[in-house]
């Protein structure tokens, strides 16, 4: 152990109260940073997981057709001006197999599912409800959604084996008083077709659970009278965060509109971002207060140690040794504070995750959602390191500047 580190350790252990004060500031700073980050990003992460598990990372739909707007100078004039006037969309994907084949060339694509959608009236023995039928290939759709985890009654194997089976949203099923095994009618412009409830799913997103009925795609084609093409292709990605870049590239290559989840859920994501900024301000204020407390404590230690600084300087300890001794103290407090703070943060996060908080509408949860992310701990420790070092550098340098002669003479300022 270096002489400076040895002295720093002894100074700290001798001043237990001051050390505990600095330590508690660091522990609280790190712990609260982690808890705040975990709780703020918890709901956002859960929301993103829910929407990705329901509608996928990307949706390829309407075909793009370029249009030109032109201006002609009139008779006898050579003037002709034309420019691209946006795009015209042709509804749906006419060649889903070709598009899916092209999509598989993208390295980030992990799954695709062609979906045929149409408006229907659901008739049960109890009442009628407007809804949308989603024709899917179950196995392909499971690669782009969390449908298998969203089943709350019945099971997917029944649906897989039943040609006229259907997956009904929980809200819709409740409204129509449908249970697994019950039959109902889907009405498209007067044409009726009977289906049986294979399973009931719940995504937690009210707009989905009250309106979607999943059926096999061939049944949907018959019902909606669309023998070819699909409404959209749901795409899943390995790296979800790359969705906007992939969407732009796909749109360019496939000539179909591609909407990433970040664009689809812009409004909710903006709301979560506002919450993150709000909590960042709270954490920053707390960090600042903790930093000031740390600065105050170390400045007090320097004041109390002026005599020891003079002794050390008289024995040949250099200015940089004095700086190092005080920076070592800060580093020791930081190291212990970071470990204890991370523990406090983890325990605090776990405790918050147990708080009952039933939410349904944009997602479904019964408890407070938290995010377990190692980066929160890294960020918290880095923030604490900056805070502690910034708070200690001024007292440490002040200590180093003290003139031993002035201290011994009793005139140190």
């Amino acid at each position: 152990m270096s002489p400076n580190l040895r002295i720093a350790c002894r100074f700290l252990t001798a001043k237990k109260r001051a050390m505990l004060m600095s330590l508690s500031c660091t522990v609280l700073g790190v712990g609260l940073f982690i808890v705040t980050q975990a709780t703020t990003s918890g709901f956002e992460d859960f929301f993103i997981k829910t929407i990705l598990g329901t509608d996928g990372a990307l949706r390829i739909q309407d075909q793009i057709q370029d249009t030109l707007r032109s201006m002609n100078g009139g008779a006898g004039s050579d003037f002709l001006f034309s420019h691209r006037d946006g795009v015209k969309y042709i509804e749906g994907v006419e060649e889903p197999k070709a598009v899916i084949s092209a999509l598989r060339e993208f390295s980030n694509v992990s799954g695709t599912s062609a979906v045929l959608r149409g408006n229907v009236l659901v008739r049960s023995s109890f009442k009628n409800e407007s809804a949308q039928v989603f024709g899917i290939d179950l196995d392909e759709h499971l690669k782009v959604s969390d449908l298998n985890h969203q089943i709350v009654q019945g099971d997917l194997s029944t649906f897989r084996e039943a040609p006229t089976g259907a997956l009904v949203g929980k809200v819709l099923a409740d409204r129509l008083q449908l249970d697994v095994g019950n039959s109902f009618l889907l009405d498209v412009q007067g044409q009726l077709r009977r289906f049986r409830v294979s399973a009931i799913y719940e995504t937690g997103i009210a707009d989905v659970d009250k309106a979607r009925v999943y059926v096999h795609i061939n049944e949907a084609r018959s019902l909606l009278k669309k023998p070819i093409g699909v409404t959209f292709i749901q795409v899943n990605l390995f790296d979800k965060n790359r969705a906007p870049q992939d969407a732009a590239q796909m749109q360019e290559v496939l000539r179909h509109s591609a909407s990433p989840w970040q664009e689809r859920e812009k409004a909710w994501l903006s709301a979560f971002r506002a919450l993150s900024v709000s909590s960042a301000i709270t954490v920053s204020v707390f960090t600042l207060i903790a930093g000031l407390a740390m600065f105050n404590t170390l400045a007090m230690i320097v004041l109390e140690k002026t005599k020891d600084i003079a002794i050390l300087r008289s024995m040949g300890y250099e200015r940089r040794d004095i700086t190092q001794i005080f920076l070592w103290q800060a580093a020791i407090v930081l190291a212990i504070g970071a470990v204890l703070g991370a523990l406090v943060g983890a325990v605090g996060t776990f405790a918050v995750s147990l708080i009952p908080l039933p939410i349904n509408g944009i997602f479904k949860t019964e408890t407070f959602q938290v995010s377990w992310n190692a980066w929160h701990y890294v960020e918290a420790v880095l923030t604490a390191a900056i805070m502690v070092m910034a708070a200690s550098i001024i007292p440490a340098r002040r200590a180093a500047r003290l003139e031993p002669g002035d201290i011994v003479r009793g005139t140190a300022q």
Partner: protein
Amino acid sequence: MADPVPLALRCANLHRYLGQGEGRVHVLKGVTFEAQRGQVYAIVGPSGCGKSTLLYLLGLLDQPDGGEIAINGQTMSNSDDAARTAARGAHIGFVFQFHFLMLEFSALDNVMMPMRKLGKLSPAAMIERAHALLGSVGLGDKTHRLGTQLSGGEQQRVAVARALANEPTIILADEPTGNLDVKNSAMVFDLLTRLAKDHGQAVVLVTHNPDIANRCDLVRPMRDGVFV
């Protein structure tokens, strides 16, 4: 003809002002002083005459406003802080009036602290030397006591042992017995002079105590910033 005794310390025409503005005082007014190894010097004089200021300048704890200081023949008055600090560590040992031990550390740690910084000895050799020094000041059985667990006289004896730790050529002592009773004063002074004589060190001490001063090899009285 015998070799001349080597000069450990020399200062010439030293000036030092303290305070600022109208309160600025010319404390040292061209002081010249020499100290040879193996000799014990006493600087005496009334309070405020500049004794301690001179001692701090000689110990390179302070910088003069004019004049020259040489330690073992090397001029230090114009050197930078790092050079002065290195010279303090290698050549000078201090004993202050108020013991100035680091109270959170044991007697052994206090004595080892200058050795650890100088880094000339191995850890085992440092411990051995610290034990020997504490033994020679009569504290061989209290090496692991904290500064706070020692009496005033014992603390001052630890300070003497610490001043001798790096075998400096110069020992500077500012009122080393000023805070001790008669018995402890005599003990500390005897210790300081005996160990210094044994190791051929120059001892310069500032004192108000005429008994102590009279037992030194040379007494230099000061008044109003000059030797008289």
